[in-house]
């Protein structure tokens, strides 16, 4: 089945130790998104790629970076995780980035714990 896969499902890191979360998709969608979701809060968009075109949200901290080496894969790098970065990180894809057809397909998420 076509899907969005995130690894690992659970990640524990130490304060200040760089961590990378990965996402892959078999849907061949143009757009990939990274969201941060804290408990009982709305998913918050960090950035998205339209093909290789990177779009950073204005309020995304510099501590968060992303790479998309090819259509299928996208990575979220947190350079120096703080306690406030503990959250669920959701990867999503869509065929387009705008318009009514941008139904998003989400992966299962990676739960990040910062010690």
């Amino acid at each position, binding site marked *: 089945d076509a899907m*969005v896969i995130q690894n690992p499902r659970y990640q524990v890191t130490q304060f200040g130790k760089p961590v990378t979360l990965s996402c892959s998709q078999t849907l061949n969608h143009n757009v990939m*998104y990274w969201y941060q979701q804290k408990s*009982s*809060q*709305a*998913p918050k*968009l960090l950035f*998205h790629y*339209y093909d290789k075109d990177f*779009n950073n*949200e204005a309020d995304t901290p510099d501590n968060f970076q992303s790479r998309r080496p090819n259509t299928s894969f996208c990575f979220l790098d947190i350079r120096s995780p703080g306690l406030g970065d503990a959250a*669920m990180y*959701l*990867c*999503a894809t869509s065929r387009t*980035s*705008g*318009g*009514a057809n*941008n*139904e*998003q*397909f*989400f*992966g*299962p*998420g990676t*739960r990040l714990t910062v010690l």
Partner: protein
Amino acid sequence: SQKIEQNSEALNIQEGKTATLTCNYTNYSPAYLQWYRQDPGRGPVFLLLIRENEKEKRKERLKVTFDTTLKQSLFHITASQPADSATYLCASRDTGGFKTIFGAGTRLFVKA
């Protein structure tokens, strides 16, 4: 700023009844609204989309309405089942950009 607001209080209903969830938007006029279901520890799953020129949309036991005067969408689950227990998120694209704005969701509990 553009906002989507959902009732933060959980909704508890009895199996077989109709669940009604509310989504209100402020400071903009979205061309469409989407509804997603999210189970604990999982990513959201798309359910329905309704456009601003559609008053109502149905899919099996689900019904969504869009009232541009009230700036509100209602999401109904008829003949609710315990398996419908989850958090339901309302979302839309902000005007002039490609960013999807999500509400924080409303938690639904359906008791057998």
